């Protein structure tokens, strides 16, 4: 097929005009990856030489080096390559979501821009999707990273994520993943959700998820953009996802559960107070602490109930927009 085409139109031409009927979109967020872009694009071209209708969506996430200039040049030379430039550095999740929004493929594969993932794995991810999965997550089999600062924290984090979300994925941190379009249509990533895509996919759309081993290379260019100190944030996000999975259709159930627990505690303190009064003959007006504790818990119970009602109102307000049924397909026929 044609490798390069003469320049047509200006750079803001509508993407729809460029390619029809894309089957596979590869989405790559880039942040200060000037050295990696060109080798990356070459590697993707080489890996997809057997595929016909693919596109590569490069998402520049506010790079401050020459990433954009290089990527724009590459995009101008090959109609299968498109560059989306975000207005500032938004972070990996919005950048990825931007790529998903732009991608037109029936199947979308995301990967890192720093060449740690190997584009040669893309066809395998696609093949696995064809087996009937909604999401295929790669896991780095022979990880080329420092043991103490990267591998161990990642191992612990993955265990925690697995335990809390109940989604059995070995390597949440690997960006090489494949998605069916139907799944992406149901998933809207924001904040820092890229860390938990499998959990989110399972929570929101009941996605069927598979894992395949993928190659991992040590970073050739640039330096890692992640730090270690993210525990609190990750925990908060995990709590959110777990809650959303269980209660996004019925927030009142969550809060009513909490309220019931508080009411029970309230009862315990009330009974204790009553017991002391009856046993040791303390007059009610001299009892402050235990009845006070009982009232505190009771107050919290009422508060949680009301908050649950607020949640129901919020849900009602936007029910139409989350009317996305879980993914499904016919089992036979």
């Amino acid at each position, binding site marked *: 097929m044609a490798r390069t085409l003469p320049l047509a139109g200006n750079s803001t031409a509508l993407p729809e005009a460029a390619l029809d009927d894309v089957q596979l979109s590869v989405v790559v967020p880039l942040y200060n990856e000037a050295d990696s872009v060109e080798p990356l694009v070459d590697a993707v071209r080489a890996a997809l030489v057997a595929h016909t209708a693919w596109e590569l969506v490069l998402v520049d996430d506010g790079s401050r080096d020459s990433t954009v200039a290089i990527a724009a040049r590459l995009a101008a030379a090959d109609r299968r390559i498109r*560059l989306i430039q975000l207005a500032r550095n938004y972070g990996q999740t919005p950048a990825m979501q931007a790529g998903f929004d732009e991608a037109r493929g029936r199947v979308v594969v995301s990967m890192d821009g720093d060449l740690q993932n190997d584009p040669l794995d893309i066809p395998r991810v696609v093949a696995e999707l064809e087996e009937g999965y909604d999401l295929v997550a790669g896991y780095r089999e022979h990880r080329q990273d420092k043991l103490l600062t990267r591998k161990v924290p990642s191992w612990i984090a993955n265990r925690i994520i697995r335990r809390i979300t109940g989604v059995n994925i070995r390597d949440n941190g690997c960006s090489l993943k494949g998605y069916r379009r139907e799944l992406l249509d149901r998933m809207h990533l924001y904040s820092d959700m890229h860390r938990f895509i499998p959990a989110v996919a399972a929570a929101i759309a009941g996605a069927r998820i598979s894992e395949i081993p993928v190659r991992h290379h040590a970073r050739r260019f640039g330096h890692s953009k992640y730090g270690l100190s993210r525990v*609190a944030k990750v925990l908060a996000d995990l709590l959110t996802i777990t809650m*959303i999975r269980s209660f996004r259709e019925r927030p009142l159930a969550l*809060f009513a559960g909490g309220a019931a627990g508080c009411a029970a505690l309230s009862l315990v303190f009330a009974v204790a107070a009553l017991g*002391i009064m009856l046993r040791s003959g303390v007059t009610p007006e001299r009892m402050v602490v235990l009845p006070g504790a009982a009232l505190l818990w009771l107050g919290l119970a009422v508060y949680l109930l009301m908050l649950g009602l607020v949640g129901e109102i919020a849900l009602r307000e936007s029910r139409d927009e989350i009317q996305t049924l879980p993914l499904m397909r016919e089992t036979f026929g």
Partner: protein
Amino acid sequence: MSQIPLATEARVAAAVPPSRAMVSVIVPVTERPEPLDELYRELSAPFRADGRSFEFIFVTEPWGRSLATGLAALAAEGEPVRALLTGQVVGETAQIKIALGQCRGEIVVIHPAYRRVEAAALTTLVARVESGADVATARRWPRRDSWISRVQTRAFHRLIVGLGAGEMQDIGSGVRAARREVLREIPLYGDFGRFLPLAAQREGYLVEEVPVPQHPHERRTRVYSPGVYLRRVIDVIGLMFLLRFTEKPLRFFGLTGALLTAGGGLILLVLGLQRLGGESLADRPLLLLGLLLVVLGVQSIALGLIGEIIVHLHATRRRTYRIAGRAST
């Protein structure tokens, strides 16, 4: 911010106005207005000298109806002045929005109803927008007002930076120029109009602070009532929250709640150990404090969870990013 080739291209293609674009000057009439016709004459002079087409839109609330009479006379003389009168007290931000909906200039200048900078600054700001900035905001520099005012400004900006709401040298100048389309896209509501440059920065627009001479009127010392300072502080805290946590309320409420709960839990732990040692809890008010902290903590976390539910439910219709340009063949 560095200019990147594609960004410039995209801007050129998108909507950079021609170099003699019409300017709309929006004046929300809020506090301590000066005679508006005088203000108009002074502010319009540089545009007139520049030979540029312009219009002035004054937006007054019902209490300021009488202020507009001088303007009517000007309009009768054929000056490009319009006065909009709101039906109720709406606040500065809404006044700006109303005027934005009405204005015809491709470049918009927002100026308070009193003098803050020399009038020539307006054309400087407009030139900055024409040369590529999305928003150009005036920085009164060098400051020539009293040290009290300067200390106030300094403290205010310390607070803004300290809370991580953004970084800017003079957010309070209130004088800005911007492309109209940019202003229409920046989400403005409540009392956040005064923080417009920070919101614009957050949205990824190129915001430039331009040092301009301060107006002689400004050199008077101005001390406000304590309520005003309190309102400003609350504004900044609100802004910080909106800019940093609107997508992840649980990070804010959860952290607050976790700290409270941990404090309460510590107290309860100590009391629990004492209880095991045989001491009674029934006459220990400390128990109430411990429980209260735990309860507050749980409330905070629960509130954060509700926030997350709401954010999640709205995620489908909200774009979390803005595209500055595209390139493809």
